[in-house]
């Protein structure tokens, strides 16, 4: 059953160069035209969330994520389109939203829960449970303004999830909690999913979304880009993010007849393997196929370090090497020896591309993620950064 149905939703904001709020300002600008400009914070948004489904919403800052949550929870009315929700909604939208800083944590439980529409009796029944879950202990009776942001989130999350709402809506707030609380949140989410509740989360914590969501929506400048399985959407998101930053101008033509195959990784002793010691030297070998002989062929070797729980790849090494194929077969076997170890641990992945140097280089194909290999752990924490490798290329 669909619990949330969003059809053609649009939210319009007025972008005013100067917003005049006081009479004096209004008067003094009476004859000047205000430079107002309407823009759509959200436009043409359509999606449904089923019972028991957990939906994550990602996107860059200003993509409209929080506005979308406000629209779903009814705080903001859409300027066009329809929002339909079935069942009781619980929200945790902003750090400190729904809280009165001058009141104690306990009083805020009551205010917050009655905002969500629960009766005194219901609140009283859960009060103890909320306090225990939030781990606030004796702080519950001190004023909220003295709470740390982590404490506020713990309290907010405890209240929002204590009453078994049908729909739980949470904005980027969990990032504030510490690891042990995050673990607790995961468990709550799980129990919500088991109880067939609907959850909608906005977060920049891609790992969290990847773990708990059935479905992700990617927003960009108020528009829905894709709605799909988490790893796919995260990939798309990261790709777009990188596109913006690094200005990858390369266009890959996916030309026919070009291929890279027979990719192998060898260890120091020349045995094919997928796992190494960090101190070990290794080499790779692959075959290149081109439809014709090419004088000025470029091979693009990229090594990525694979990060986190999802497939975030960070480029740590790149080398472009010139070769020429002149043997009438258009085939060449390439062997690259790495004369220095990577000296990092973790999982790595190779991508290899074929370019042809014309007036401007033409990127024929790029084989992404052609092979993965692992270097066993020797440093507990190791950040991805560029590495320098000494290589020796051999061509047959």
């Amino acid at each position: 059953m669909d619990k949330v149905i969003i059809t053609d939703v649009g939210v319009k904001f007025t972008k005013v160069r100067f917003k005049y709020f006081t009479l004096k300002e209004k008067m003094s600008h009476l004859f000047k035209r205000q430079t107002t400009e309407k823009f759509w914070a959200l436009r043409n948004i359509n999606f449904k969330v089923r019972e028991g489904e957990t939906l994550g919403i990602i996107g860059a800052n200003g993509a409209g994520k929080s506005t979308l949550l406000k629209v779903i929870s009814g705080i903001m009315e859409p300027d066009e389109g329809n929002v339909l929700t079935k069942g009781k909604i619980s929200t945790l939208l902003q750090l400190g939203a729904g809280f009165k800083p001058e009141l104690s944590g306990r009083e805020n439980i009551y205010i917050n829960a009655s905002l969500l529409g629960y009766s005194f009796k219901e609140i009283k029944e859960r009060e103890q449970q909320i306090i225990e879950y939030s781990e606030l202990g004796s702080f519950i009776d001190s004023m909220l303004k003295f709470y740390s942001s982590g404490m506020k989130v713990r309290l907010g999350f405890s209240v929002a999830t204590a009453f078994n709402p049908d729909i739980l809506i949470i904005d980027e707030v969990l990032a504030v909690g510490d690891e042990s609380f995050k673990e607790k949140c995961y468990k709550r989410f799980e129990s919500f999913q088991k109880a067939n509740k609907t959850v909608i989360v906005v977060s920049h914590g891609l790992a969290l979304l990847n773990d708990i969501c059935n479905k992700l929506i990617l927003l960009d400048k108020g528009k829905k880009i894709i709605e799909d399985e988490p790893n796919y959407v995260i990939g798309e998101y990261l790709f777009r993010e990188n596109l913006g930053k690094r200005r990858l101008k390369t266009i890959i033509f996916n030309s026919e007849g070009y291929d890279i195959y027979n990719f192998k990784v060898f260890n120091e002793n020349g045995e094919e393997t997928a796992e190494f010691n960090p101190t070990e030297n290794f080499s790779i070998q692959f075959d290149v196929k081109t439809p014709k002989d090419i004088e000025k062929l470029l091979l693009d070797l990229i090594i990525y370090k694979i990060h986190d729980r999802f497939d975030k790849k960070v480029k740590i090494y790149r080398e472009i090497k010139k070769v020429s194929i002149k043997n009438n077969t258009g085939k060449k076997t390439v062997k690259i020896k790495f004369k220095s170890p990577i000296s990092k641990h973790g999982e790595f992945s190779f991508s290899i591309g074929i370019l042809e140097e014309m007036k401007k280089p033409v990127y024929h194909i790029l084989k992404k993620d052609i092979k993965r290999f692992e270097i066993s752990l020797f440093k507990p924490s190791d950040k991805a950064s560029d590495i320098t490798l000494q290589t020796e290329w051999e061509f047959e």
Partner: protein
Amino acid sequence: MFKRLKEIYAYRNLLWLLVRKEMKLKYHGSILGFVWSVMKPLFLMMVYYFVFDKILGRSTPPYAILTGLLPWMMFISSNTASANSILKSFNIMNQIRFPYEILPLSKIFSNVINFAISLVVLLTLYAIYKVPFQAYMLYFPILLLIELTLIIGLSLILCSITIFIRDITIILDVIFKAWFFLTPVIYSYSLVTDRSGPLLQKLYLLNPMTPIVVSMKFVMGVDPNFGILPPMWGHLMYSLGLGIILIIIGYILFSKLRNKFIKLI
């Protein structure tokens, strides 16, 4: 409109909590705390009594001043507090959708409760000065209700406009000061009837608070200058009618602007 009322009723818990919070925070952290809500009108009463009775020689007993002062203070403090109520509730408005009317209502309610508490002081003063009980006194709650319609109507209008014109509260301050002196709160209505012509009197009675305050003083039998002036029923109906009109205007305005609040605050 009925549906809205039902919705507001459904959120009565929240209303009650906000009222309680209001009461608690009003004098939060001050040493005398709650006592202030009683002391403030008493001090004012003493000042006005000193000025009127001792300096201007207009023999007005202190309890008569307080009788006018208490409902008046409820009037202005409800309205000024309501005017800011939406603007200052950004926090909870960002949590979830609820009937925003709760916000000005909570301010009004807490002021009514405050009034009820200070009423005890008033009655004590009556006892001290041996003001005799009379059947007219039972009209007092009706007069309060008429005042309440004015308060609710005005509050609804003010709280929705303040979002768009932020300095309303400052303007209000000036307006209420003038309004205070144009209403027979601290002086007797008979002063006006004695000294001004019929046109001026008519203008004076356009003020919807005048019949309320005059009648309040009358039914309590505390204005010695009155003689047997009856409660001004006709004028009271005018106040009530105006109150209802203000509520309707306020309600329409509020409903029209409600959806814009969250985008603007």
